[in-house]
């Protein structure tokens, strides 16, 4: 288009920079504050520099057992991630052809994304409560509860991660060249072979992206878990509970740790995606090279 950069570019660039600062600034504030000395309070200025609050956090003499919550969140996040990936990919494949109930499934996914989380959460809580009552009345009187991390909690998280996975799959297959599959079929590949050796390698970077969404969304999920998780808490729930009671920087330390885990996962996934893309470039296509 036009040569040179118009004045508006610099204005917008400044706006963008301000937005990024707005996004990250507060987060850096708590990272910095979490490293302050034992006398430090909740705000600036810093009182020395130490790992005191992290040590206190992991010593576990605080109000809640952070270590256990961390492990629970991690386990749940991994399970959610796995299920999200498997279901999203298979549903994505299925949606490439029209099938019965496809539009119902589509609208269910979209609705699940936009119905307020607390309503979903409340619904799941009620569902399990009613099931519990049925069990108690008709099957065995010493039935405790079906609610828990890997039943109602898992379900609540999946209603949040699956729509994202599905939308990403849609985006992928909208750009997917199905002639590649036809070629595989013409060369005698079974459906499984064409999936395994043709489709999967091409979509793999995006599948990692789905995994990234699956894990991080579950790791940080709060609103849906709030009513549906049962008697134990995940990390974000503990954190939210702490906001009202705690006046020490250990809440910042916990925040730094949680965000640290998120960043590790993000970094890992982006790294794998880059690696895969490089591989694809290297070994992928020989088109146009005159081979």
């Amino acid at each position, binding site marked *: 288009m036009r040569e040179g950069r118009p004045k508006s570019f610099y204005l917008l660039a400044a706006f963008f920079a301000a937005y990024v600062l707005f996004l990250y600034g507060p*987060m850096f504030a708590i990272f910095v504050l979490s490293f302050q000395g034992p006398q430090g309070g*909740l705000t600036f200025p810093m009182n020395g520099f130490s790992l005191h609050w992290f040590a206190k956090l992991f010593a576990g003499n605080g109000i809640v057992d952070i270590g256990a919550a961390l492990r629970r969140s991690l386990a749940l996040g991994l399970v959610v991630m796995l299920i999200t990936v498997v279901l999203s990919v298979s549903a994505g494949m299925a949606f490439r052809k029209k099938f019965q109930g496809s539009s119902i499934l589509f609208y269910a996914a979209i609705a699940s994304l936009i119905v307020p989380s607390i309503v979903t959460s409340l619904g799941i809580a009620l569902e399990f409560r009613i099931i519990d009552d049925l069990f108690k009345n008709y099957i065995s009187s010493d039935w405790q509860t079906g609610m828990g991390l890997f039943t109602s909690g898992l379900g609540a998280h999946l209603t949040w991660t699956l729509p994202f996975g599905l939308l990403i799959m849609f985006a992928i297959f909208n750009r997917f060249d199905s002639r590649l599959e036809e070629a595989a079929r013409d060369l005698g590949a079974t459906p499984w072979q064409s999936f395994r050796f043709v489709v999967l390698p091409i979509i793999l970077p995006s599948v990692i992206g789905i995994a990234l969404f699956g894990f991080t969304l579950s790791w940080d999920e709060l609103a849906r878990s709030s009513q549906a998780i049962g008697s134990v808490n995940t990390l974000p729930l503990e*954190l939210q509970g702490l906001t009202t009671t705690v006046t020490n920087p250990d809440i910042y330390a916990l925040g730094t740790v949680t965000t640290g885990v998120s960043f590790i996962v993000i970094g890992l996934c982006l790294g794998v995606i880059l690696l895969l893309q490089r591989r694809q470039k290297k070994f992928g296509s020989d088109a146009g090279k005159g081979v």
Partner: protein
Amino acid sequence: MMLVFALFFILPLCFVVMVSFWDYNEYQMIPRFTTRGYYESFEGCLTKLPELCTMLATYVKTVKLCLIVWLFTFLIGFTVAYFLAFHVRSKTWQIALSLLCTIPFWTSNVIRMIAWIPLLGRNGLVNTGLMDLGITHEPIEWLLYSEFSICLALVHLFTFFMIVPIFNSMMRIDRRLLEAAYDAGATGWQTLWNIIIPLCKPGIVIGSIFVITIVMGDFITIGVMGGQQVAAAGKIIETRLNALQFPAAAANAVILLAITFLIITMLNRLVDIRKEL
């Protein structure tokens, strides 16, 4: 996948509607048809008209909050998306900068809320800064635990939901249209108003749906940033739940759902979502 949605989404919604018509007492719910959950929420509302009772006032306030947040997320989101789509030229930079906007979305919302405390608190950076500069002499109280901080945090958290759909529809605009407009002598503003905004409408609507539904149902941000003092639609449900009044909570959930769907159908008139994916 269908099974998951049926078990954990559709069925629960049905239960919410069902239970909202149940009776209840102090410690349990009783499966017997009644509209008590509804009318107790609005008790005294008719007699007090034209003044708003607490419940109605809360809903009105939630809608107002929603509109403010929507306006800001839209303005910021649109500008950021516009910059990314039309002013960043290399593909690599575009991806890198979009990632920069996306990464906070993958981190915890609670932490991003707490992060405002050291900045806005009574001894926070903003207040000490202002006092050092001699602009104010006392800490400004309304910075934290107020409607201001709620709006700020909501905009901070959810502008992302605006950027992505708007950016997506901007990237689909045929660049030749812009050149044509330029050749035909349109100014930058004319191009923006007559070409880009109409073509971005689907993205804007989708983003708006996200932001509005999230804010309508939110109770965590409002709880944390409002110091558990500010009431809102989502907060009502949470309070009822903590009191174990499930049918009352369900009744409020149904009302909330109805309002949300009303807004969505209104927006949906403007655009066909399925076509835009």
